[in-house]
């Protein structure tokens, strides 16, 4: 594969050279999602009840709060990349940029609320 013409190089034509990284990260987070979501589904199903006191004391444990934070990081970065794929497939004009920015606001904004909530419960304990 050649390096193209000199004017092509100046204009930055060709691949972005970041595709493999994004592709691999999507697969890596798929693997960590599988492990963390398997834990989450089993842990949720095995809770004795779903009232406030039970759920709060569950989440306040470090054995739950830590994997929950990891789950949010893994799942949210996975769906952020997934939404990028979908947006790039269907949005062809300027709306693509708008959608990609909104997707960042959505993923980072919700992710921040989630992690803050988990840490708040973990650091303040089961009692309110």
């Amino acid at each position, binding site marked *: 594969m050649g390096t193209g013409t000199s004017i092509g190089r100046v204009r930055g034509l060709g691949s972005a050279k970041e595709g493999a990284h994004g592709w691999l990260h999507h697969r890596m987070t798929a693997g960590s999602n599988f492990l963390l979501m398997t834990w989450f589904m089993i842990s949720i199903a095995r809770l004795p009840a779903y009232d406030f006191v039970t759920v709060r004391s569950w989440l306040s444990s470090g054995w739950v709060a830590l994997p929950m934070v990891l789950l949010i990081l893994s799942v949210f970065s996975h769906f952020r990349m*997934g939404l990028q794929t*979908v947006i790039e497939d269907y949005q062809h004009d300027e709306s693509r940029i708008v959608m990609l920015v909104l997707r960042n606001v959505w993923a980072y904004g919700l992710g921040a609320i989630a992690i803050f909530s988990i840490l708040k419960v973990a650091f303040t304990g089961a009692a309110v």
Partner: protein
Amino acid sequence: MALRNSARPISPHLQVYKWGPHMLVSILHRVTGVGMSTVGATVLVWWLAAIAGGEGAYATFRHVFVEWAGGALGYVIGIGLTLTFFQHMASGIRHLVMDTGAGFELKRNKMAALATMIVSVTLTVLFWLYLGFK
């Protein structure tokens, strides 16, 4: 990213192919992914924020998903999201296998696509039966 000239012919897409399980599972993977990253993320973060917010915030969450209309919204979204999750998980594993270059033979590909749907429905039923009989 140029605007598409609508007078130009476009390549054949969904409307000209005969639907098979592999096509259905492929589009389901996308639909379930978008569903979980919008509805699923909203419910999960609302739930976490309600636990952090205190008893009142948690009561509001419970009212919407457990008490309102006999918990209808909770069942629709809860069962919907578990089925969505298990389908995305099963077809995701299928995609990881196909990433290695395996499973592209016509018959095996079709069987694996069907298997993802059988797995997702089975796991959803087992999950809710477990919750129900617990």
